[in-house]
Structures are given as C-alpha cells and as structure tokens.
C-alpha cells in the first residue's frame, strides 16, 4: 500500500517545525522560504493550514514538463523533480493548479515535495500530529483528489 501525507489542519498550531524540517532535509539549512510544505495562516479564523503537493495521479507538472525532468518514484508514488534535468522553464509552475511546485531562483530549478523518499521529514517534525504519513486509503486528500479530477481537463472516464 502506498502511503500519503495526511494533513489535519485542526491540529496545526502554526509552529513551522515542518517547514524547518523540510528545508533542512533538502538543503541542509533551516529556511522556511525554501520549504516545500507551507503553513498558511487564516488569522481571522484562527486557522493554520499546512499545504503541500498531493502527488496527484495524473500529475499536471509531470505532463507539462518539456524535458522529462519530473518522474514517478516507483517506491513512494511521489512525483520527483530531477534537478539535473530540469532546465528551469517554469512551465510546471503554471500548469499545476494546486500551486505546489515552485521555482527557486537560487538554483534556477523548480522544487516540489518528493515525500523524502518515503520518510517525510515534515511528518516526523510535526509536534501535534497535524501532518502524518499514512496508508493512502485513509487520507483527507481524497477530497482534494476529487477536486483535482474536476480541475482536470482530462475526464473521469479516462481514469
């Protein structure tokens, strides 16, 4: 069974330990601005929402990539950017309707969540269980996937 990141925003306190863990895991530095998971703050509702790539089935970013730089990790199902191949054209960043693949000026490449090869650092760092890595069946991302399908110009019939 492939696992997915499960996000329960109700448990999020907005501490950003996930963002630090993500940036450290990927770049060896505590730097939320380079985190691939972002916590959004809905100040007037008192709500914090961690948000990252859903690893959607028919990945927009992957389909749009002109140079085959985004591939599926067979073990985790993650859509992974191969930095060596990415030319930095940013087409994926406007193709992904979730806004979860982003250009990094420092590297001239794009970045997105790659599930850390199956041990997501954000989930390990979350002190409240707002981010967990669980069997894909149960994830609250189901709702987003439904929505993803709706966004998809490709129809359900194709799936």
């Amino acid at each position, binding site marked *: 069974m492939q696992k997915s990141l499960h996000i329960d925003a109700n448990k999020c306190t907005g501490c950003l330990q996930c963002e630090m863990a993500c940036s450290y895991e990927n770049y060896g530095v505590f730097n939320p601005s380079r985190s691939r998971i972002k916590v959004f703050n*809905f100040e007037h509702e008192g709500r914090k929402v961690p948000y990252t790539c859903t690893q959607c089935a028919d990945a927009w970013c992957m389909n749009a990539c*002109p140079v085959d730089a985004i591939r599926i990790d067979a073990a985790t199902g993650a859509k992974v950017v191969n930095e060596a191949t990415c030319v930095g054209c*940013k087409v994926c960043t*406007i*193709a992904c309707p979730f806004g979860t*693949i982003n250009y990094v000026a420092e590297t001239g490449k794009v970045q997105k969540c790659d599930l850390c090869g199956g041990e997501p650092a954000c989930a390990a760092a979350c002190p409240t269980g707002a981010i967990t890595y669980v069997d894909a069946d149960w994830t609250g991302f189901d709702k987003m996937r439904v929505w993803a399908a709706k966004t998809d*110009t490709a129809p359900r019939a*194709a799936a």
Partner: protein
Amino acid sequence: MKHIIIGNGPAGVVAAETLRRLRPEAEIALIGDEAEPPYSRMAIPYFLQGNIDAHGTHLRKSHDHFATHGIHLIEGRVACIDSAVKQIQFQSGERLHYDKLLIATGSHPVRPNIPGIDLANVHTCWTLDDARAIAAKAKPGSRVVQLGAGFIGCIIMEALAARGVQLTVVELGDRMVPRMMTPQAGAMIKRWVEAKGVAVHVNTAITAIERNGDALRVKVGAGGTALDADLVISAAGVRPNVDFLAGSGVEIGLGIRVDRGMRTSVPDIYAAGDVTEAPGFHSGAPQLNAIQPNAADQGRIAAINMAGGNAELQGSLAINVLDTLGLISTSFGHWQGKGDGVELVDEARFRYLSLQFEDDVLIGATCIGWTDHVGALRGLIQTRTKLGAWKARLKADPTQFMAAYLATAPKAA
C-alpha cells in the same frame, strides 16, 4: 489498429504514450520532420545559453524510450492526407494507412514580409538547428537586432544576453509581450530589460534589412533609422502548420478546428497542440493557443478518444510564464479582464499583480515577480471557484490569492 501521429512535439509524444498505455496492442507511429529525437522548443533558450546540450532538450531522456514503448519513430515530411482511403502520403511519395490519425504538427515561425528577410545572418529561432546557427554567430560584442518582443523573442533574450551580445529589440506592438501581458506589466518588463542593457523599441516596425559589407543594416520605423547588426533574429510569432491539409477535408480556420474531444471535421482524424483552434475556456469559440501545457493536455485527450475513450477538453486556457533576464512574469486566462479587476503595481521593486473577475469568479491574472504558488491562480480560474466573500478581500488585497484559493477551492470539491 494503426495509430499514426504526425508531429513529434509534446502533443504528439504525450499522445503516443497515452495511446500505448490505453491500447497495449495497437501499432503506433510517430512522425517527425527533423533529424533529431523528439525535443522541446521550450528548452531551446537553455540550449542557446549553453546550460544544456542537445540531449537536455529531448522530451524523453532514455535512448530507447520510444522503442521500449513500442512507438515507431519515423523521420519524414507528410505532403498530404487522403482521408477517403485513410492514408497519409510523405513527400517521398510513400503512403501509410491509418485507422486513427492525430495531427500534431505544431506551428512555424512567421516570416515577415520585409525586404532582406532572406539574407544570410537573418534567422528565426525555432529549431535546434536555428539555435546552433545563432550560437555560432552570437559572439560577445556581436550586434544583434531582434524583430519581435513576443513570447519567443522574450524567452531567448536571456540566452542572447548571457552570450554577451549587444541586443536591440524592435516590437511592432505598443509594449513587450502584448499578447500575454497587460500594458502595465509589458511596460515594467521593458523597463527591466532596458536596465539590463537591452535596447527596446516599441510601436516600431523593421522596414528593411540590407547588406552592409559583412554586416547588416536594419531600417527601423517610418523615418528609416538604421541599426547596424551582425545578426538579425526574427521572432515575429508563429502560425499553425496546416498547408499540407489542403484537400484533406479537414476544416481549418487559423488552425485546425477541433471539438472538445480534439476531433476534426473528418472522422478518425484528430488534432492536438499548437496546430489546433480549440474551444476557448471562457468563450467556447475556437482559439489558437500555442503553449506547451495546453499541447500536452490536448495530446492526452486526443489519445484517449482515439483509443475509444470519451475525454473532453474543459476549454483551452491561456497560461504563460516568461523569464526575461531574471524577471519572472506569468499570465493566466482572460488576463485582459472584463472591467472588474484589481491591479497592484510596485514599479520600484518590479512587482505586479492583477486579478480579473467576472461575478465572484476569477477569470484572469497577471503577475510579475511572483513565483510562489502561482499555479493556484490557474486552479481558481479553471475550477471556476466561487470566491464568495473572498472576492472583496482579494480586491482589497490581491496578494492573498493563495489564501483565497485554500479557503475556497478545495471546498468546491
């Protein structure tokens, strides 16, 4: 079942792969007319800049990708289609039968009707060969005049600048990238590239190109100001490759007319990518939309339908991203708007954000200097998410678009 795909750009390649996935037993042939493996024009600027070699531009990286997927690559140029007998004919005269045919022949650069456009050292920048020729001639200090500051012109600007040339850009329209950027945004991009040392003339035409010894002399504007140049690059836009369809019965406007299933007017002939005029996302009317993500989407939809499925395009949505000498800009959907929008301009810091609405739905957006989460703008437009109270919040502060997206779009499911 024989599937033939004419054109090995992104639309053709994605279609071929999709067909293979859905129809493991089918014969699939993918025809290209350049002596290269399928490659991406989006990668040409990076090739020109020397960041990648030719292999880096290839759409698929492993040398046997197409062979292992049973996709038969054919190099050749199709001369015509005989739909009555379901055959295509190559220029060589050779004929091939198809059961289902996909036309994904893309587009070609317009050659403007200017005296001297055919002189040596006047190039388009469209193919890998073009790029190789330009790379050989664009030396540090070379004087380069670029005709056109549209999308293609802009994406090669950085590569030329990186090669150390003296660059002058001449654009007929009133601003840079007039077909994907608002006047404010186009002006901001112009100011940016000028500050980086590129000379930009807008509202001006090149009237003639003349030989001047080893160099060229470019006449600009009605007054006939002359610019000396070692190299002229013509980037005056592109047109669909449809000439070979004369007599095929396939209905053509500016491009091939297709329905939402990417079907042409002729049974068993489909079209996808730059060559098509597909129903627009907002208007529903046929529109050209020569952009990479669109091509990939259309290729997939066409293939699904060729395989007997039933896929439909939601409508062709213009989305664009540009990097002009480090200034990143994007535009989405009906960025021109319908009179109900909000615009934030920070001239000093080169940041710009425009959101356009119809009722409480986002229909278009333009950004400069924004790179984080911009895809969500597409998400909001494409899902036609009702923003409710968030519309007023966005009009007060459009920088909150990601929050608006998170608050409204997932709930729309």
